[in-house]
């Protein structure tokens, strides 16, 4: 009896000790985690506002990055593309807080980031298209060179010609814009409306006779009803603006 009582007594003493040993480390883990959380909160409260640091690209050479990427150029290009988008988005968010019109010209790193992306992956069309839309407000000359580079690397991509035409139109370089649209419209997959753009650009540039000739030729050659309609409308507009042609327009309408 005493023996079994002793055994039970030892067991009842051993059990809490075993439990304590088993629970000690998990308890310590939770306690120390809690303390580290408190310490982190205190450190955060002591932190001063970050210094304003100039935007910097530590590696500005796409060629160097290409060498260092060990053949993983595409992946590096993706990283820089995402970085470009994040850079753009962060600046947008920063300016949104000031309730002012978004000033793209403040994005000083946009051009080098896009240059690096294009160097790493010359076939990343999205980068050239993004540059065509936003780079003109940073540096128009650089934007034109950037899109032209995209065209050299992707000569079959009609959208880049459209983007080039757009950039040139914004700079009032209508003849060059017309040439860009004309080249793009000849590529496979180019939409029918692009064929009318060269003439539209010439009209915008004040070369009304040239524009008229282009619209007339396109009207006669095109099978697309939409293109024919656009050409007809533009010819009527041009004729109205040109007095000696005004009579011809009235006669053409009368023939109908």
């Amino acid at each position, binding site marked *: 009896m005493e023996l079994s009582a002793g055994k039970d007594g030892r067991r009842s003493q051993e059990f809490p000790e075993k439990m304590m040993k088993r629970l000690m480390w998990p308890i310590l883990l939770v306690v120390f985690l809690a303390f580290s959380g408190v310490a982190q909160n205190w450190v955060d409260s002591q932190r001063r506002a970050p210094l304003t640091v100039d935007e910097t690209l530590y590696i500005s050479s796409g060629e160097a990055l290409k*060498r260092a990427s*060990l*053949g*993983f*150029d*595409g*992946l590096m*290009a*993706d990283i820089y*593309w*995402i970085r470009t*988008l*994040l850079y753009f988005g962060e600046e947008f968010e920063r300016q949104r807080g000031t309730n002012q019109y978004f000033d793209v010209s403040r994005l000083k790193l946009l051009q080098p980031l896009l240059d690096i992306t294009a160097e790493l*992956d010359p*076939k*990343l069309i*999205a980068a050239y298209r*993004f540059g065509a839309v936003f780079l003109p407000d940073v540096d128009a000359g650089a934007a034109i060179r950037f899109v032209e580079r995209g065209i050299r690397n992707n000569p079959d991509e009609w959208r880049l010609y459209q983007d080039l035409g757009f950039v040139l139109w914004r700079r009032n370089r209508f003849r060059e814009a017309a040439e860009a649209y004309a080249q793009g419209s000849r590529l496979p997959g180019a939409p029918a409306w692009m064929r009318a753009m060269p003439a539209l650009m010439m009209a915008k540039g004040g070369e009304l006779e040239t524009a008229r000739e282009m619209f007339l030729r396109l009207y006669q050659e095109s099978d697309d009803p939409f293109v024919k309609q656009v050409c007809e409308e533009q010819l009527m507009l041009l004729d109205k603006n040109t007095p000696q042609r005004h009579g011809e327009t009235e006669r053409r309408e009368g023939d109908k």
Partner: protein
Amino acid sequence: MIQLHALKIIPIALNTFRESARDRALYNLALLAILLIVASVVMGRIAVGQETKIIIDLGLSAMTVFGVLTAILLGIGLVSKEIENGAIANILSKPVRRSEFILGKFFGLCLTLFASIAAPAAAIAIALIYAQGGVAAAQLRLWPAVWLIFMELAIVTAVALLFSCFSSPALSAMFALLIFLIGRWSPDLKLLAETSSSAVARAVSRALYHLLPNLANFNYINETAHGETAPWRMVAGNTAYAVFYIAATLAAAVLIFNRRNFK
């Protein structure tokens, strides 16, 4: 005549596969690759219409990097472990040629590599199906690129095995990694061979270009990400190059291994 008995090579290969498959590093690396592939689906969402490109770029790149680490980690210990724990004497006392031992080890590790890249490849395929909203014929272009990566890893394995025959594991790992880096930069070696003004430099560069593995051949990741399928001629040509290069490397490994005295 060189006589190699497949009946002796196959059991060694299967045993090597079984042993390698127990290595936890293998599973950790495969898991890391799969996690990166899952992350690529998320990254693709913020890349403005480049989801497919990022999944393929990140997925195949992760597969290559982790595959190379697996090939080196397993390859450097293939022979040296047996030597260090003394099992080599037991193995070679059996009627097994040293060449059969080396080949069995190599094929066993290739089986292991195949299994270790199958999971990430399947993860990429699933990620593409998810991103593109269903199965599409264009997703098949992934598989020639995966095959080329496997060929590249097989070459790295053979090189690691070669170093394992005469060097310590640490040095073997370093050499194998260096060979991988130089192999990836082989187009620059070729450029040096063509453009250098020194005749000696041209000759040395040309020799190194042919002696070292040309691993840049097997990199079709960027093109695949842009929607191109590796042409079958290119795949066949690179496969033939890999087979010949591996055979040469294994021959060198057998040559060195045959001359080693394990007493």
